[in-house]
């Protein structure tokens, strides 16, 4: 019989693996015969192992360059940022040096072409944000502000002279910038901002007065991209420099979130700004929103980095901690939480990767970015809170880092468009009806 002859031929070879193939092949005679005769044909595809660290094989969807960028930067973050962050957060100390260090690595304004910037893909930018935020959201905020909220508007809306003057120094981390849009009385509602810019034709300057608050980097910033309402009612962007009379940046005290980065106000008391410092190529809220979308994309990736840290840390803790004679991880309640974390992080990363590819092809709409910023931040906050709970009492100690992420993600969920505001952006896109204001 065909099957028996094939089986004997296979068994005469003393190799164990072939016998295994033979026994498996006993299922169908045809298969066994084919297996014996076509020994040159490759074996059955190897069984795919599930990798909980990368459940949907994100790695396989990245280019070699993106992998190298991520790996190199991950090493820097783990070796140079992680050791600093505990004390930086505890004592609310901002290490200004990290901006210069990141500048040296070329990760500031990475998507900009020219002016000393790397000119890499948006997917790479996302991977960079994820690695920094794996360490701390405050550090990633500093990177996002410098790249998306300072370098990007100058690059997208500025003159050639402004780009030459500021971009290379911002890219190197020689100077630090900040972004002034939010005001004490106008957060989600920037269109009714009270900061005014009055043009003086005689001196060719603008006089800007107003107050901005919750400004990352402002206490240490050398320049500020400030958005003010001009006399024609249009919002425009201005580059203010430290040293201008009337420009001050008091620090905001008593923060429980993003303590490793410096946050403050921008107070402008009739600051005279030369007209060369106006960003001429945009007017209206499209300007700041373009910047915010750029930053929000990075945050969508970044928040998942923080979530990944919390998930991995909780997993390790529950494997190590023995209660009632078994590791905590043996318990169903723990495993369910980890399964939920794994799922959300994996799905979130896939969506961010796809969004990044769309952005690189210039096929992304702002609502897509809103959707993913909202999703990543909301899910990451949940994951961090769950992880904190899994660590029990130790979870409230900053030595275990998770509580720091819990505190940070409160801010990350709120800034750059709160969770609810992004819901309204999507709601308007879904229904065609805006629900931001009471008027129609």
């Amino acid at each position, binding site marked *: 019989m065909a099957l028996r002859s094939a089986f004997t031929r296979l068994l005469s070879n003393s190799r*164990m693996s072939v016998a295994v193939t033979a026994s498996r092949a006993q299922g169908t005679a045809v298969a066994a015969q084919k297996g014996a005769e076509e020994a040159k044909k490759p074996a059955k595809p*190897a069984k795919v*192992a599930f*990798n909980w660290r990368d459940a949907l094989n994100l790695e396989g969807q990245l280019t*070699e*360059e993106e992998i*190298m*960028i991520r*790996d*190199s*930067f991950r*090493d*820097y973050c783990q070796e140079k940022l992680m050791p600093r962050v505990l004390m930086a957060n505890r004592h609310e100390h901002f290490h200004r040096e990290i901006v210069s260090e990141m500048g*040296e*690595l*070329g*990760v500031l304004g*990475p998507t900009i072409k020219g002016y000393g910037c*790397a*000119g*890499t893909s948006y997917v*790479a930018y996302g991977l960079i944000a994820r690695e920094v935020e794996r360490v701390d959201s405050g550090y990633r905020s500093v990177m996002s502000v410098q790249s998306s909220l300072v370098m990007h508007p100058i690059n997208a809306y500025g003159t050639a002279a402004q780009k030459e003057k500021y971009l290379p120094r911002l890219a190197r981390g020689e100077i630090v910038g900040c972004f002034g849009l939010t005001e004490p009385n106008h957060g989600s509602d920037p269109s009714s901002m009270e900061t005014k810019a009055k043009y003086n034709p005689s001196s060719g300057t603008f006089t800007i007065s107003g107050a901005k608050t919750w400004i990352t980097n402002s206490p240490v910033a050398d320049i500020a991209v400030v958005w003010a309402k001009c006399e024609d009612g249009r919002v425009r962007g201005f580059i203010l420099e430290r040293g201008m009379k009337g420009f001050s940046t008091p620090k905001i005290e008593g923060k429980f979130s993003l303590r490793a980065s410096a946050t403050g106000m921008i107070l402008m008391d009739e600051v005279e700004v030369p007209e060369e410092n106006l960003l001429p190529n945009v007017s209206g809220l499209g300007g700041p929103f373009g910047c915010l979308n750029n930053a929000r994309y990075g945050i969508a990736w970044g928040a998942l980095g923080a979530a990944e840290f919390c998930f991995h840390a909780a997993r390790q803790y529950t494997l190590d901690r023995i209660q009632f004679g078994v590791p905590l991880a043996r318990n169903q309640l723990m495993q369910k939480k980890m399964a939920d974390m794994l799922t959300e992080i994996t799905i979130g990363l896939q969506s961010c990767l796809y969004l990044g590819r769309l952005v690189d092809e210039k096929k992304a709409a702002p609502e897509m970015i809103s959707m993913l910023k909202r999703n990543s931040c909301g899910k990451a906050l949940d994951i961090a809170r769950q992880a904190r709970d899994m660590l029990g009492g130790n979870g409230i100690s900053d030595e275990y880092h998770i509580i720091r992420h819990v505190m940070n993600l409160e801010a990350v969920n709120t800034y750059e468009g709160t969770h609810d505001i992004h819901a309204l952006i999507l709601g308007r896109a879904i229904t065609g009806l805006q629900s931001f204001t009471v008027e129609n």
Partner: protein
Amino acid sequence: MSGRVLVGVKRVIDYAVKIRVKPDNTGVVTDGVKHSMNPFCEIAVEEAVKLKEKKLIKEVVAVSCGPQQSQETIRTALAMGADRGIHVDVSGKDYENLGPLQVSKILAALAKQEDAQLILLGKQAIDDDCNQTGQMTAALLDWPQGTFASEVSLEGDKINLVREIDGGLEHIKINTPAVITADLRLNTPRYATLPNIMKAKKKKIVTVKPADLGVDVTSRLEVLKVEEPPQRQAGRV
């Protein structure tokens, strides 16, 4: 002198990975496991790039022996500042049996072909811990060797070297051309910067086969069995 330095870089399982022995005890699990450049090779690359930045040498050529994936390791060396790469293609059973003797023959052949002034290697690889390739390469070429280097300085056509040895530090002076193997404290390897990673794409990697260099990679060693060390027993207080 050509001013050319050959740097050997080996693709190994990443140092942070937990190693597992294959169920059939023929080796360790490598499929789907994270690999990266051997840490001592990173130190060697860093030293070569530093010498080039000081303008003491002209060109850094990164060499790796292994399958297609070894090109990733060469790419990392290029991102750190090497100028071009040579991938010696060894795969399958030949790769599983590749050891210091064959690699040193390959490096010796390449050194002659490329007219290298210096060969920089890591002192050993973290997967086999052989600590033999540098020494064998020097012997095959009849070149001086400076192993376990923790300080290297070029002085004309000689090299001042500090070696880390059991008794302390040994200062030697050797002629060029020479083989140097890097020890831990020689330098701190740089992080590859984004712009350099992107420039590395344009640098050339040439693929050759051992036969092209007249080297036979058949191994004289046969691995009989690989097994885990005995499990640690609990102690008693």
